[in-house]
């Protein structure tokens, strides 16, 4: 195996993650600005801002983008000072920071477009260095929660104090992780996510304690504020309400509650409840199990029918059940849906930040009607849409002067529309009324003819294609488009099309499924093919030592496969070659074995080698009641080829039946 690893393959990932971080930094700055305007502070946003910058700096360093490293570093120094000063970043410092984030963002775009990013502007670096984070030292907040005060930084105490003063209750609770809770999906990560949904986390501190059995255990003490109840919080950490302590300020003539916008706090009293996505995934998982057992039920009915039993009543029940299962599936899918209007909300901020008054003016039209989309799809889709909108602004919309000459409305219009197609697909269109793409110019650059919109899209989305030379004046597009296509086509299994008219504008259309399933999988190689299995289905993976004898599987006349036994632990473990089972064995020695549990019994499959562990999108089966034994679905590992998701336990079932035969 080669030792050479090239980090340049991560450039695409860098662009995506850096854009997210830039967006997060901008959002934090906006919150800080709002807090400044309201005469209060927002230490949490200052902390978030710091972390986003720090991460950008680290990633940019790995990829080797020095100007971004410099900018992030200078800004990080300023924000760190603000954090130490109790979490205030005064107006002037916010302004310089906004410019610096803008400068970082421009350089990320340059990377996306395969241009060399401009060096960090000296004047900006100097301004960052010369800016004081905080003009006044805020008065130290009074001690509030006796067992917490010593563990909180100045900024965190300020955060708690500001919230309590505004009338938001504070809470102190403890989460005790165990293997059993972890198996039920209750871990510090999920607890943290769920708590962040009902309130604002101030601090989580790990602590060790001695268990009843004398073993050391870990516990997490959690401090948060939010308009919730002890019962609700107790439920999150699997404790009782009595174990949740509420924290309030000592009564004093409190000032009127500030009307600081608190977007990440759910107002109580509405008939909605926020549910963590992982719980809905769980629900869906349970439903799949139900569908599998229904399939078995049907098989059993068919068997009874074959031996001459009267199965009419059973059939009727089975038909009703099939309908009910479809309804249930639809209900679960509905619960995962978010409004597209909400998903597209960040676009208006984006447009505002991209407009240059007097030079380039912009107008955004959003029309999503009542369309809804699975949260998991929305999370993947948004970066692609942001990409397209950015491109439109950067390269398609002409400067004010040019538009005037062309007799166009002064403000360039970006229109994003979304509608449902056929109940299971969403069609998004991102249009602009800019200069349109000059096919001839793109064709010259690409060195091949472009006859129609399809050719154009192929060229624009070819990895590495850049219209850099022609982009500014003539062509008007062609940047980072391979990423957009990857998201739409490879990740989501959708379609991407383009239509452009020179002088009149360009429309990109994305067609994506309304819902997808995402699972954590092991990927591995078997024969000439790659496969994946859900991590949850695998009990153990072990290496096949050269000494352990796995007899080559023999296939009988009826297609049955003889299973070898491997001495492992105190009992023999049946081992079967997956390659032989799937009839794709290419004679390579299998290196690994994966153990699964089937009806309580262990069964191992040998595979050539493990590739890794990752999260993948599993394409929904057209009809979940159509069931192919052993195949749970298909996915894409990023190479554009479909990869099968195997259900090893079910494949194992097939073996035993054949062995018995």
């Amino acid at each position, binding site marked *: 195996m080669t030792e050479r690893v090239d980090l340049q393959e991560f450039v695409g990932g860098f662009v995506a993650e850096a854009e997210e971080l830039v967006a997060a930094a901008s959002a934090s700055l906006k919150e800080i600005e709002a807090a400044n305007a309201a005469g209060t502070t927002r230490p949490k946003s200052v902390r978030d801002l710091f972390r986003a910058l720090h991460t950008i700096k680290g990633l940019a360093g790995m990829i080797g983008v020095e100007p971004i490293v410099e900018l992030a570093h200078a800004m990080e120094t300023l924000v760190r000072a603000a954090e130490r000063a109790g979490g205030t970043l005064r107006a002037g410092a916010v302004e310089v920071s906004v410019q610096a984030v803008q400068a970082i963002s421009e350089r990320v775009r340059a990377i996306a477009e395969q241009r060399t990013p401009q060096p960090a502007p000296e004047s900006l670096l100097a301004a960052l260095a010369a800016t004081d984070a905080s003009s006044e030292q805020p008065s130290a907040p009074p001690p509030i929660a006796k067992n917490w005060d010593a563990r909180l930084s100045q900024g965190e105490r300020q955060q708690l104090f500001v919230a309590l003063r505004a009338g938001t209750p504070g809470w102190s609770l403890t989460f005790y992780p165990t293997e059993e809770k*972890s198996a039920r999906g209750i*871990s510090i990560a999920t607890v943290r996510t769920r708590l962040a949904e009902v309130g604002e986390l101030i601090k989580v*501190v790990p602590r060790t304690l001695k268990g009843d059995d004398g073993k*050391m255990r870990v516990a997490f003490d959690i401090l948060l504020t939010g308009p919730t109840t002890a019962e609700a919080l107790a439920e999150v950490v699997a404790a009782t309400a009595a174990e949740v302590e509420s924290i309030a300020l000592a009564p004093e003539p409190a000032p009127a509650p500030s009307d600081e916008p608190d977007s990440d706090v759910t107002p109580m009293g509405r008939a909605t409840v926020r549910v963590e996505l992982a719980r809905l995934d769980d629900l869906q998982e349970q439903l799949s199990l139900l569908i599998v057992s229904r399939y078995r039920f049907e098989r059993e009915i068919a068997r009874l029918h074959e031996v001459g039993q009267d199965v009419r009543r059973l059939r009727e029940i089975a038909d009703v059940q099939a309908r009910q299962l479809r309804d249930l599936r639809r209900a679960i899918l509905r619960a995962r849906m978010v409004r597209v209007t909400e998903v597209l909300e960040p676009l208006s901020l984006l447009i505002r930040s991209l407009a240059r008054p007097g030079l380039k003016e912009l107008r955004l039209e959003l029309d999503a009607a009542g369309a809804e989309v699975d949260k998991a799809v929305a999370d993947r889709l948004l970066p692609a849409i942001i990409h397209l909108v950015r491109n439109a602004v950067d390269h398609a919309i002409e400067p004010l002067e040019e538009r005037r000459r062309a007799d166009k409305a002064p403000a360039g219009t970006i229109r994003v529309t979304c509608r449902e197609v056929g109940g299971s697909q969403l069609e998004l269109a991102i249009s602009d009324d800019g200069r349109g793409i000059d096919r001839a110019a793109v064709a010259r650059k690409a060195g091949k003819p472009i006859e129609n919109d399809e050719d154009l899209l192929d060229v624009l989305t070819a990895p590495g294609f850049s219209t850099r030379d022609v982009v500014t004046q003539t062509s008007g597009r062609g940047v980072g488009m391979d990423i957009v296509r990857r998201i739409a086509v490879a990740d989501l299994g959708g379609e991407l099309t383009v239509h452009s008219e020179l002088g009149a504008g360009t429309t990109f259309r994305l067609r994506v499924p309304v819902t997808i399933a995402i699972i954590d999988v092991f990927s591995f190689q078997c024969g000439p093919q790659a496969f994946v299995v859900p991590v949850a289905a695998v009990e153990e993976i072990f290496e096949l030592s050269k000494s352990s004898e796995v007899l080559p599987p023999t296939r009988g006349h009826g297609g049955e496969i003889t299973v070898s036994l491997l001495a492992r632990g105190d009992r023999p473990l049946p081992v079967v070659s997956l390659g032989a089972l799937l009839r794709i064995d290419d004679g390579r020695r299998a290196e690994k074995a994966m153990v699964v549990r089937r009806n309580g019994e262990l069964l191992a499959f040998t595979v050539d080698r493990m590739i*890794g562990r990752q999260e993948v999108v599993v394409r929904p089966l057209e009809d979940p009641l159509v069931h192919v034994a052993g195949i749970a679905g298909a996915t894409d590992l990023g190479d554009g080829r479909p990869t099968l998701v195997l259900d090893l336990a079910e494949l194992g079932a097939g073996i035993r039946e054949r062995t018995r035969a």
Partner: protein
Amino acid sequence: MKRLLIVDDSKLMRDMVAACLRPLGAVTFEFAGTGLEAIERLALAGFDLVVLDLNMPDVGGVEVIEFVRSQDHLRTLPILVVTTRGDDSSKARVLEAGASGFLSKPFAPPQILEEVRRLLPSAA
């Protein structure tokens, strides 16, 4: 099969670290996105080595190291700190807290591979 825990709040960074360590061959990678998750995973399961970032939400890398070293059964677990805070005082603080190795970002792939090979208990 060795188990490595890679702790970083950036998914890209986790992926890059895993990519750099691919030549190790027989290892499984597990990932944690926060210091809290790392502590939980380490408390509940056994690992052969941890690659740890310092700057994370709620609980930073230094606190993770302090936690690990306070646990009897984790006292010898190799911890490689990988951080953008490459200055000497950070390094001193981290090593004092009980890290086994220290690498500042950016690093070249062979550097981290070599460090991990050095720290990983020799394969059986």
